[in-house]
C-alpha cells in the first residue's frame, strides 16, 4: 500500500511511464557497468536522491518500503562473507570471514543496492496500470499482462474481503485464544478460497457480457509530453551510466 500510495501521489505521476522506464533501465545498466563497489554505491545514491528529492517521495516512506529488501540483502551478504569451517572435532567448528571474498561481497552488495534503487524509482513513481500499459506497448506476452491486470485488481478486492472476514471473526471472539485463532484462520482461508473461485467466475461472466472473447484489451494511454520526457530521461540516464564508468 505504501508503494501504491507513492505511485499515485508523487511529483512525477504525470511524467511519461516510458521516460521513467528508460531512466530505470539506465540505472540498471549503470549499476552493472560499475566496476567498483564505490561506483555501484554512487549510482544507487543518485537513484535514491532522484526518487526522494526529484519525485518528492518522503524519505521515511522510502526507507520503510526498502527495509524488507535491505534486510534480505544484509542476510544474503553476511552469508556470502562468512563461511562455516568444520574441523576434525566439534571444538574445531568456527565462523570465518574470508578476506578474499570480502571485495566480491561488497561488489554484489553495491550492485544489489543499485538495482533495488532503480526498481524503487520505477515502482514508487509509476502506478502499476501505467507500467502494464508500457509493457503492452513493448509487446510483452498478453497472457502475462492479463495475469498482472487481474492480480493487481483482485489484490485489493481480496484484501478487503480478508479484512471484512477478520473483523467479523474478531467481533465473535474468533481470535480470543491461540486455539480459536488457528480455527478462525482455517475458516478464513476456506472462505477466501471459495470467494476466489466465485469471483473469478463472476469476472469471466462480466467479461463475456462486454463482448470479450480472449485477451483483456484496453485503450492505450497517451502522454502529450512523452517525447520531451523521454529525451530528459535518456539524458539523465546517460549521465548516470557515465558517472558509473568515470568512478570505476
Amino acid at each position: 500500500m505504501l508503494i501504491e500510495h507513492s505511485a499515485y501521489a508523487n511529483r512525477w505521476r504525470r511524467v511519461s511511464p516510458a521516460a521513467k522506464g528508460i531512466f530505470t533501465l539506465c540505472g540498471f545498466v549503470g549499476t552493472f557497468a560499475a566496476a567498483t563497489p564505490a561506483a555501484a554505491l554512487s549510482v544507487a545514491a543518485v537513484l535514491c536522491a532522484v526518487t526522494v528529492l526529484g519525485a518528492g517521495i518522503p524519505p521515511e516512506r522510502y526507507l520503510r518500503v526498502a527495509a524488507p529488501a535491505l534486510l534480505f540483502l544484509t542476510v544474503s551478504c553476511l552469508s556470502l562473507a562468512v563461511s562455516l569451517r568444520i574441523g576434525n572435532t566439534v571444538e574445531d567448528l568456527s565462523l570465518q570471514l574470508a578476506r578474499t571474498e570480502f571485495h566480491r561481497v561488497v561488489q554484489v552488495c553495491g550492485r544489489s543496492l543499485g538495482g533495488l534503487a532503480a526498481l524503487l524509482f520505477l515502482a514508487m513513481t509509476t502506478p502499476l496500470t501505467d507500467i502494464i500499459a508500457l509493457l503492452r506497448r513493448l509487446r510483452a506476452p498478453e497472457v502475462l499482462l492479463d495475469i498482472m491486470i487481474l492480480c493487481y485488481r483482485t489484490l485489493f478486492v481480496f484484501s478487503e474481503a480478508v479484512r471484512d472476514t477478520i473483523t467479523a471473526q474478531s467481533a465473535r471472539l474468533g481470535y480470543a485464544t491461540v486455539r480459536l485463532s488457528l480455527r478462525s484462520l482455517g475458516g478464513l482461508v476456506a472462505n477466501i478460497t471459495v470467494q476466489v473461485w466465485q469471483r473469478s467466475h463472476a469476472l469471466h461472466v462480466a467479461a463475456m457480457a462486454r463482448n470479450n472473447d480472449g485477451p483483456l484489451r484496453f485503450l492505450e494511454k497517451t502522454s502529450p509530453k512523452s517525447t520531451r520526457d523521454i529525451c530528459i530521461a535518456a539524458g539523465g540516464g546517460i549521465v548516470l551510466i557515465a558517472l558509473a564508468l568515470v568512478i570505476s
Partner: protein
Amino acid sequence: MKLQTINHILELKDVSFRYPDGSVGLDHCSLSIKRGSRTTLLGANGAGKTTLFLHLNGILRPESGTVVSGGIPLGYSRQGLNTLRSRVGLVFQNPDSQLFSASVREDVSFGPVNLGLEPQTVRERVEEALKSVGMTDCADKPVHNLSYGQKKRVCIAGVLAMRPEVMILDEPMAGLDVAMQAELTMILDRFHAEGMTIIIASHDMDFAYQWSDSIAVMVKGGCKATWDVKSIPDVLEQLAAHGLGIPKVAEIHQFLISNGFPDKEGPSPRSHQDLMRKLAAVLTCRT
C-alpha cells in the same frame, strides 16, 4: 402482430433453464420489453431475476423456449452474441465483479475496445460515458480508491460506452445511500429521455411504482405477471398475493379515497410528493 413484435425490443418466450446442480433458474418464463420503456423486474432473492438478465445478454442459453431480440430469435453464434451484447448492456449488482482494470478510464474502454472500434472513437466514447455519469474527475483514480457508489457509476459508464439500445441493471440501488440513489435515478432518467430502454431488478416496490413504465413480477423462476404501472392501483390485491408488498403511496391513496378524499379523477399519485401535492390542493380548496 408483426408491428407488436417490432415494438418489443426483447422477448422471452416460454423460456426454461436449470443450473447444473438441478436448481430451477427459469420456469416457462415469458416476458416482453417495449422499446424505449422503463421496466422493473420485482422478485424475492432467488426468484430468477439475474438468471433472466443473463439470458437477455446471451450469457446463458435456454434449455427450452426462445429469446427474441428485435423480432428475431437469438442466434448463439459468435457473431450473433457479439451483436446482441453490443445492443444489450448488462450492469452487475456487485461492481467488484465487473471492474477488471484498476484504472477507471481503462476499464470503461474495455467494452468499446472489444467492439473493435478505432482508438480515437474509443477515446471519445470513454470521455462521453464518464461525463454522462459524472465521473470525469475520477477518470485517473485507481478503482480501489473509489466509493461503492462511484464504482457503480464506473460500471454504468463501462456499459454506456458501448452505446447499447437496452441497459439492464441488476439491483442498481443496492448498497447506495439516499443521495446516491437520487443521483442514479437522475442518470437513468436521462438515459431514458435519450431513448434508451432500461430494465432493472429491484426489491423496492415504492421505487418501481414511482420510476417504471411497467412492472414485471417473478416468483420461483416464473414470470408471473406484467402490469403497466398506471394499472397498479387496480391490481393491488394481486400484487400483494405475490408477497412483494404494495406501493405505500397507492395504499394510502386508496385509503384516503375510501374515506371520502375527493380525488377520483386524474392520474394516481406515484410518489409521496405527488400525494402531498394532491393533499395540499384539496386542503387549499377547503380553506
